[in-house]
């Protein structure tokens, strides 16, 4: 007879439970099974009779088990009592469920426990130390009353909790008890377990815990603290929970992960995971290794799942992730830069920027004709098309798609008041956007154009109005983008410093000094051009104070010469 006894709580997939029970008994470990009272009587008797040929399998008194209710504790108590009575050799009692599966040979577990005859394996932490509580209740589990089911009557549950908080209602915790919580799956020594079960004050404790919320996570965890000589505060059962406190389920494709975990028992196993049951329940003739359980890798896999479910991938919009305004955690997936007025001021700005930063530099992505992708492409990563109608049908999807499709590669694009403006709020709210604006630079192409002056004047007025509106957006309190704005006059006076700042921020690895400057267009006569606009009653205030004679301060600027910074 083994020194390890198994208590098994079962409510569905009885055939699997029987398989596992026989696996335990084959190694000499007695099993006492508790079948939920809710299981149909006929199913129960069939189950009992199919196990009846095994003298090591017994059944205990049945209780109704509701999630979060007292029934599970009552079930554990009666099953533990009967296993301790019927099998006097048992030193450790292991509480498991019907969907638990032993991963290592039973004898390894028996040896492991024999080497630690005094240790109680039960996760047990004070309420201040746990972070995983469902519904945000920790100490209040012990001090409030919970007559309504959390799963079935959530509203009643919540409002009754609120009411009790409001009234300052408190239940008294029995003297000597310090509330502890932890995983409901434990392995306790006979000494500790009998001390709990035969405690003269057990009635008092039971009456108290009957009204505690989710007592199966606190009854034994709290009482073991009173009697145990050596508590090892961890569960030998590998069990991971999702963000709603439901156990994760293991499938056939977890086989390798489970194998490498070196855990003794895992839950929950999907009842149809044939390969898992087949693999772990056949006689494993592995060499006896006394490795410590090491669930690290599994922890990571499931932690990732929780992260994905609660936070998701930034900048991704799809059929199962469509955040409300303000809940996006980042409107796009990767940083990018928007330049306004630069390609108007410099002859070869786009190729220069590409060389200086290594980023992919597009033209006016929101140009009225088409999206001007880098290199004149008509489609780009993700088969994103350059069609203006398609783009303007959903401009935010266009930008978020572009950035998502090219994540890992910095994107830069030109923007201006002549472009479609529907995207402004999105860019302004996006913390990944770096927006650099030289205001009034739209006047340069007009200045160099061959249009009639009356048309130039009208166009200038239109563009100025659009840019003014855009600047209001960029200036709003909701703007999260990194915005830099210069008037054209400011910028032209000393262009290298702002350029350097912007390029440094894009960060290509090493902060290189700009050795080559882009060529600025010839602005000779621009001052006069602006004055003519003013004389016609159109005041181009966004350009800034541009001198009429193109002379800044004392010295004359030679616009055609490139600027070199030492």
């Amino acid at each position: 007879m083994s020194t390890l006894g198994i208590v098994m709580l079962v409510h569905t997939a009885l055939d699997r439970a029987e398989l596992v029970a026989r696996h335990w008994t084959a190694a000499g470990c007695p099993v006492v099974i508790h079948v939920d009272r809710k299981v149909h009587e006929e199913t129960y008797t069939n189950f009992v009779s199919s196990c009846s040929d095994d003298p090591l399998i017994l059944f205990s008194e049945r209780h109704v088990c509701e999630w979060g209710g007292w029934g599970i504790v009552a079930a554990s108590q009666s099953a533990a009592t009967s296993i301790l009575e019927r099998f006097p050799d048992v030193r450790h009692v292991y509480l498991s469920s019907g969907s638990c599966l032993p991963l290592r040979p039973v004898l390894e577990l028996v040896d492991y426990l024999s080497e630690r005859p005094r240790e109680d394996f039960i996760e047990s932490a004070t309420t201040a130390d746990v972070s995983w509580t469902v519904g945000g209740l920790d100490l209040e589990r012990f001090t409030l009353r919970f007559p309504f089911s959390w799963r079935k009557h959530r509203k009643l549950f919540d409002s009754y909790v609120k009411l009790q908080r409001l009234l300052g209602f408190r239940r008294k915790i029995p003297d000597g008890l310090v509330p502890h919580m932890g995983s409901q799956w434990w392995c306790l020594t006979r000494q500790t377990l009998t001390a709990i079960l035969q405690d003269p004050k057990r009635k008092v404790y039971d009456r108290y815990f009957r009204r505690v919320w989710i007592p199966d996570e606190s009854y034994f965890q709290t009482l073991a603290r009173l009697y145990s000589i050596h508590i090892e505060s961890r569960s030998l059962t590998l069990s991971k929970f999702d963000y709603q406190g439901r156990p994760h389920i293991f499938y056939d494709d977890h086989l390798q992960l489970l194998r490498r975990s070196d855990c003794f028992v895992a839950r929950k196993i999907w009842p149809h995971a044939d390969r898992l049951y087949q693999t772990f329940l056949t006689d494993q003739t592995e060499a006896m290794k006394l490795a410590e359980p090491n669930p690290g890798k599994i922890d990571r896999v499931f932690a990732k799942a929780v992260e994905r479910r609660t936070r998701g991938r930034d900048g991704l919009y799809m059929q199962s992730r469509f955040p409300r305004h303000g809940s996006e955690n980042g409107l796009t997936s990767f940083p990018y830069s928007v330049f306004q007025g630069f390609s108007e001021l410099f002859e070869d700005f786009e190729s220069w920027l590409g060389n200086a930063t290594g980023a992919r530099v597009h033209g006016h992505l929101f140009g009225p004709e088409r999206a001007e992708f880098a290199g004149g492409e008509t489609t780009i990563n993700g088969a994103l098309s350059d069609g203006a109608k398609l783009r303007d049908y959903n401009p935010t999807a266009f930008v978020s798609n572009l950035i998502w499709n090219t994540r890992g590669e910095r994107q830069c694009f030109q923007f201006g008041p002549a472009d479609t403006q529907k995207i402004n709020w999105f860019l302004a709210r996006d913390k990944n956007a770096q927006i650099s604006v030289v205001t009034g630079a739209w006047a340069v192409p007009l200045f160099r154009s061959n249009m009639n002056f009356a048309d130039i004047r009208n166009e200038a007025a239109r563009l100025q109005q659009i840019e003014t509106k855009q600047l209001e957006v960029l200036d709003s309190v909701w703007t999260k983008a990194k915005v830099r704005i210069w008037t054209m006059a400011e910028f032209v006076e000393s262009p290298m410093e702002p350029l350097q700042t912007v390029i440094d921020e894009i960060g290509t690895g090493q902060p290189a000094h700009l050795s080559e400057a882009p060529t600025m267009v010839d602005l000779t006569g621009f001052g006069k051009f602006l004055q003519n606009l003013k004389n016609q009653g159109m005041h181009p205030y966004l350009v800034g104070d541009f001198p009429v004679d193109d002379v800044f301060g004392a010295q004359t600027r030679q616009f055609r010469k490139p600027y070199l910074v030492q």
Partner: protein
Amino acid sequence: MRLRRKRRLLRCVRKRRELKPFKDNTANIQSDSVLLMSVVRNEKIRLPYFLSYYRKLGIDHFLFVDNNSDDGTAEYLSEQPDVSLWSARASYKRASFGLDWSNYLLRKYARDHWVLTVDPDEFFIYPFCDTRPIRALTDWLDSTGVRSFGTMLIDMYPEGPVQEAVYHEGKDPFEISPWFDSGNYMISKNPTYGNLWIQGGPRSRVFFQDNPEKAPALNKIPLVKWDKRYVYVSSTHSLLPRGLNQVYDEWGGEKTSGALLHAKLIDILGEKAREEMTRNQHYRASGEYRAYLEQLEDQPVFWCKWSEKYINWRQLEILGLMSKGNWA
């Protein structure tokens, strides 16, 4: 909304008279069977692969409505032991494009079952579908209290012209059309029913470049734990009650979702489009098919150098076209 739902229910019950049982194997449906519902017309060439694909996935029983096929579809289906077949001679269009029929059958046979409603050219993909049967998914959805599962329709296309991708009965259609668009989908929320409205993909890019608002909807909710109160409202794009359309997370997280690979853009499309044009039985006065027919004359090629070649569900999950969500 309740009124709309009731009207739909009433409508489908009224339209039940148009359904004549052809082969009734519904007695074989067990209480935990996972079902599949589909309305077909002249799909004989697609059915053998379709059935074997979904049998492998773990579908226990198929419910088919045959609408006036003359290519042996009905005969073929009635030979299958796990198929129940009804025939409907009446107008597809006047039965809300077949929806009334499937709503009725779902109400009658799929109550408290998980049921997948798909067209014969749609192939369901979900996380871990290569290692876990559909029962694993539905059990998990049950345990998390979820009653509907969202997907996106992904149009698959060949490398060359559509007409040159010749499909042979029984073959995997994605052997000849393994390409898809990975990142040009546009989403907005439909305030009436609360579902997402997804457009984009190759058909938008090639056929609807100039009127993108007319591009077909790609959002689908094909897998539902059915209840007699439920109805599909517009294809499988949306359901009532509205809560069932909430298959997406609005607070930044990702719910678990899948995809429907769409084997439409192969040589069968031309025939289909011609046939549907003469019948004029499709949505928006068959405008979609008219567009196809016109465009097909030009031998359209959907493939571009940014097309992705389909490998498996993990690829789709990395591309952001579906999500494992909380299922690990």
